[in-house]
Every structure is written in C-alpha cells, then in structure tokens.
C-alpha cells in the first residue's frame, strides 16, 4: 500500500465537524451583528470604561492619567460652587420641560388624530421643528427672543406685556431655553403619542360612548390608561434628554458667563468647560459618572413605580 493511499484513507476516516442547523444559524446571526458589536465595544463600551477610570484620576489628555482616588468627587461636592449651580439649573430645566413636553405632545397628538383633510400636512408641520439642528434653532430663537426687536416680545407688547429680558435676564433665561426645547421636542413626542393613540381599540371607545361617557371621561378612563406605556417611555426619554441639554445652553450663553448670573450653566455645559476649556478630563469624567448614576437611579425608580400606574394590555390577558 502506498504512503499516499494510507494518508488518503486516514483523511476519509477523520471525524467531520458537523454543526447543527441551529448552531449554523446562530453563527450566521452573530456574523451579521458583528459590525454592530464591534462598534458597540469600540465606541460605547470602551469609552464608558475609560471614562469610569479617568473619573478617579487627574487627566489633562497631554500627560498620562494620575490616580487620585475620590478627589474629583470631593471637589465636585464640596469645593466647586458652580457644580451645585449647574445641578440646580438642570433640575429646574428638567422639572418644567419634561412634563410640558409630554403634555403638549399629547395634546398635539389628540388634535392630529383626526380624520380631516390635510392632516398629513399638519402632522409634518408639527414634526419638522424637531429636525432643525440644535445650534440653528437656538440661533433662530435668539433672534425671536431679542428683548427689543424679537417677534416674541413684539407680540407680547400687543397684550400689554413689556420688558421680558429672556436670555439677558437671570429670571427668564431658563424659561427661554424651555421654550426652545418645547418647540423642537414636542414634535417627536407627538409622533410617538400618535402611534399609541392609533393602537387604541375603537371598540373600547365605542363601548364607553354607549355607556354614556362624555369626551373627558373617555379620555381619562379609556385613552390615558391605554397610553400609559407610551407616557412612561416619553417620561424616561425626556428626563434623560433634559439632563443632557447642552447645545442650546452653549450657544445662548453669553461671553464668559453662562447667561446672566450663570442661569444657563447646565450640567453638561459645566462638564464641557472642565473637559475642553480647563483641560481637566478627570473631573469631567467624574461629573459624567455621577450623572450616569443619577439617571440609572431615576430610570429604575420610574420603572418600579410603573407597576402602579402603567397599564399593559398583555398583563390583563395573562
């Protein structure tokens, strides 16, 4: 028997690796998501881990980070007077902008959930402001809110309201920012609510009508409970978005102060300054970590509370 024929004979008797169909499909699936997975690891997971580490260091980007333990957090909570100012400003902004955005979004959705001629145009028109880039819309609003010549004050003057300083007033600068946010953000909230309203079974509404419920009773007892999952979603996303407000505060702030008496010094703007104006990446990372933890806590709290006020149709069926 020749050597080659022995080799060939051995090759034909090697166990063949056979993957099950399920295994092959699993591998194929992972191969397809591999690009996304790589992007997740490189652009999200790695920066998060790195930022977590930097928050315990002194890091200027120009020298290697130096471990300093909890010094950044001590500075944040005890020595940086503007930190608490930024927290206060951001909390104010979130407290007003989120509920207002949800309320306005819902009202618009209810109005646009009608079968009237041209409804498509109106839905588009209300959604379009959300597509305007933040910097452009802030610049636009700075013109509209000009105390002397802006359209807003000219209109208010007709009704006898004078002298609102808007972005040049410590008392009115945050309401100005909230106004900008409502103009730009209500559209996307509206679209999400509209989708939820479309899902409400008409049979329930008709049943309520037959039972004698008026429009408000139908809204409160049928519509609202059925869209509570959407309200929860918008609430969580709204809180996360409002905590991260940056572009409008950055553009609208004037000179070296973030608005009169730092009234526009939002959390992310303060973080940005430390990272890119004062070259203190470690402190900025610490601020980012604190914000992340606060958002996690808030989100978990909201999710836990949802069992008391959010109605899921699937729970009913189960």
């Amino acid at each position, binding site marked *: 028997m020749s050597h080659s024929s022995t080799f060939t004979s051995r090759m034909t008797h090697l166990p063949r690796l056979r993957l099950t169909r399920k295994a*092959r*499909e699993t*591998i*194929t699936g992972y*191969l*397809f998501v*591999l*690009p996304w997975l*790589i992007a997740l690891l*490189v652009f999200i997971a790695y920066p998060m881990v790195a930022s977590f580490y930097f928050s315990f260091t*002194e890091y*200027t*980007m*120009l*020298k290697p980070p*130096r471990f300093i333990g909890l010094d950044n957090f001590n500075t944040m909570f005890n*020595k940086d*007077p*503007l930190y608490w100012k930024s927290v206060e400003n951001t909390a104010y902004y979130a407290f007003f902008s989120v509920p207002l955005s949800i309320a306005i979004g819902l009202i618009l959705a209810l109005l646009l959930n009608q079968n009237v001629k041209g409804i498509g145009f109106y839905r588009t028109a209300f959604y379009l402001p959300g597509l305007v880039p933040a910097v452009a819309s802030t610049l636009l609003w700075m013109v509209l809110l000009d*105390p*002397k010549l802006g359209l807003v004050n000219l209109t208010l003057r007709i009704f006898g309201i004078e*002298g609102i*300083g808007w972005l*040049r*007033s*410590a008392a009115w600068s945050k309401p100005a920012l909230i106004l900008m946010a409502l103009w730009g953000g209500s559209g996307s909230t509206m679209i999400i609510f509209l989708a939820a309203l479309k899902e409400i079974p008409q049979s329930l509404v008709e049943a309520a009508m037959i039972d004698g419920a008026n429009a408000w009773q139908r809204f409160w007892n049928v519509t609202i409970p059925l869209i509570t999952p959407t309200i929860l979603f918008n609430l969580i996303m709204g809180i996360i978005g409002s905590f991260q407000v940056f572009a409008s505060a950055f553009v609208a702030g*004037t*000179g*070296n*102060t973030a608005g*009169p*008496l*730092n009234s526009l010094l939002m959390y992310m703007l303060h973080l940005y*300054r430390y990272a*890119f*104006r*004062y*070259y203190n990446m470690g402190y900025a990372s610490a601020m980012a970590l604190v914000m992340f933890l606060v958002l996690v806590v808030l989100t978990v709290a909201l999710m836990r509370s949802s069992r008391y006020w959010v109605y899921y149709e699937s729970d009913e069926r189960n």
Partner: protein
Amino acid sequence: MSHSIRPCPTLNRREFLRLAGIAGSAAVVASCTPGSSATQPPPTGNAEEPQPTDTPSSQAPAAEQITLSWWNQFFTPLCQELFPQIIQEFESQHPNIKVEYELSGGPPGGGEYIEVLLARIAAGNPPDTCTLWTPPSEFGARGALMAIDELMAGAAKAKPDAFYEKPLKSCQWKGKTYGLPASAGAGCIFFNKGLFEEKGISTKREDFPTTWEGLFDLCRKLTTVENGEVTLAGFVPWAQSWLRPVYAQNNGGQIFSADEGVYKINSSNNVEMLEHWLKYLDELYGGDIEAFNLISNWGGDVYPEGAFQLGKAAIDASGAWAPTDAQIPFEWEIAKFPVGPRGEKSHTGFWPNWWAMPKGVKFVNEAFLLTEHFCTDGWVYWYINGTMDTPAWKNIPPDIFCKAVEKTYGTERAIDFHKFFTEYLNDAAEMWTSPIENFANDTLGQTIDEVLHKAKTPEEALANAQELCQTKLQETLESL
C-alpha cells in the same frame, strides 16, 4: 468505466446568507485594522523634546524635500487672499519646504480646533506649527508645546529682544518660551467725534481725559436719558472683558503676576476698580444691569452690531485691528486709556495671534523657520496689506503703515495710527500669562456679573474669585 459527473454544488439561500455575513464581517474587521491604510507617519523622537540641530536658521536646510503642516482657524476672504502669498514667499525662500494648510476655520477634517489639536498632540501626531487664539503659556505649562528658546537664540529674526516684551511674555512660562506672538494689536479708547461735537466737547486726542474721574465726568456730560431709558451712554467700562488686566494695572493693581506665580484679584486696587464701575451703573445708567443690557449690545465692541456703531455709546474700547476690521462709518478718534487714582502710567492691552510648535514635531528646525516667518516678515506683510493688527515684532521698517487705513483715512492718519499703536505697545500691561487663563477669565466674568447684579459686594466677589483662582492655580501647578 464511465466517470460519474458530480453535479455542481448549488448554493441555497441559507448558505448564501452565511457567506455574505462572513464576507461583510471580514470587511469590517479588515477596515478597523490599523497599518495598511494611509495614515500619518508615526511621531519621531522619544518623550523628551527633540533637540534642535546646530544649523542656524539663516542657512538653508538640507536638500531633502519636506512638507510641513500648518493648522489655523483663519477663514475670511482676506485671509484666503493674503496667507497663500505669505506662504508662497516662505516657500520661495526655502525651496525644499512645502507647506500644507487649509483656511477653513478649523482643523483639517473638521471638528473643534483646540479639541482636535490637543488630541493630536496627545497622540504624538501634531501639526508642525499651529496658530493659537489661546495663550501659549497655558498650553506650554501643560507640556503641550515645544520650548523654543534655543531656536530663538540662533534665529536670524526671531530673537527674544526682537519682540515687544509683554506680548512675548504671554508665550512664556517659568522662563521658557512656548510660542511666538505674530500680532499684538494694541488696545485703546475709541470715541465718536460727532457725538462729542454735539455736546460741545473737544475732539482732540490730547484733550481726552487721562484719569478715571475725568472720564467719569465726561460720561456724565455725554450720557442721555429719555423717559427713564438711557439713549446714549458715555462709556461702559465692563463691556470689553479682555481689557480687565489693563484697567487693573491702570489703577496700580494686577490680576495675575507670572513672575510671582500668584493671583492678586482681591487687592484693594481692584476693589476700587469695581466700585468705580458700580458708580457708572448707579449714577449714570439707572442702577439695573439687566434693564441696561436690554438697551443695546454694549459688548459688541466697535463693530456694526455693537453699541458704539449703533450710536448708543459715545466711547468704547477696542484694538488696533478695529479701524480696518470694523469699518466704522462715522468720524472717530483714538486715545490712551485713562489712569485710576492709584495708577501712575497709562497701559495698553494686546490680543495676539500666537504661533506655536506642538510637542512631537518631526522637523523642528524647518517648523521653526515657518513659525519665525509668520511672526516676522509674514505678519508685517499682513499688516501692510491686510488689517492694522500691530506686529509683535519690533524690527519692522519705520515707514510702513496699513494700506487699507491709508485708503480710507489718508496717509497722514495711517502713519499716525501706526506710530500711536507701536509706541503704546511699549507700555503694555501683563496679560495672557496664566496657566489657567480660561478658568480665571470665566471666574472673573462671573465675579463682575455678580457685582453688577448687586448679588455680592466688590470685596466679597473678588475675595471669592481670588480663592477660586488661586486654588485652581495651585492644583494645576502641583499636577504639572
């Protein structure tokens, strides 16, 4: 014996999708792998600063063709016109050097200029020279820039004593020089001659008040209030934030001393300065800073959007570049800054365009030649043919002036302005020297804002600012 013909293997849909997934993922992984695609050359040298060679800058470098990169934030039509000419002149003097640059307002590829620049320095892949609108002292102290003292000592034109003292000091930290100032546009008072004439006030430069009290009295005559609203303000001293060190030094005080390495924000001189500013607000401008700020854009300098050009302020402060840049449409005159009760001499300020060589530059000598060119002959060319932004280099021909100023205001005025600003620069205040310049400027801005809003007294506010800035300075110095 017949050969059995194996049928061609068919590719079913699952197989096709599996192969497509493998191929796509392989392509993504391959594109993420560094090395094979065209990248910047790795930085040469080790962690230590590259040492300059013995070749003096006046000699032509070796014949090897070199490409230098220059980063900047210039973008205006005038920059697009003049900078290529400046580069061309440099390249004709050094035929083996080519300069790569953009005039797009930011770094190549876009992004925020300082962020991208710092990232490239940190990565060891910086441009060979860069223009900075932030003081080199701040970056140099943090180890981002190359010290160029040895290069300057051997330079033909950019020797240390060839520059005005204070603008050069803005590039220095702890005895080392980290950049060069190309321009040092000196600051001064601008006043509206028409408005002065209406009030019967002399418009001669020499008659302009030389003291703070004199200026205040002048503003009392100029300020007009109608129906409770200021329709014309004399002068708004807090409007131009970059001039704070000048006002402080004109009252015998200081914001920051680089030689001593300490802040002096809460000195009695500076308290007196803020109290004097409050006097303007309370006695002339109605006492309510927010109501006053609604009237006009006081911080708009002498530019079209500012109160000065809008006819709302009779006097403002700006820099030497303003006559060509701001296109003031009425008759105006300039004067030196008045001096406070504790000041002895009128100081001016300056706002440079700086050039620097980041750490990790590959061709040190050649990069310095380019930097030197920009900050000497190059900027003189800009000054003559562009804006009247006074060169920081002292060794300029004595009979030059800005052609744009000559075209608008005549030869005599152009020569007069040139003489005024270049001589005034000899009395420049110390500014832009702190390693925490941005932090201090922001803190001072907030401090003045608090005082004008009556949220704190000048003494309280300045004491707070002093503590914040000095603490920040100490922390930064300890980390350097």
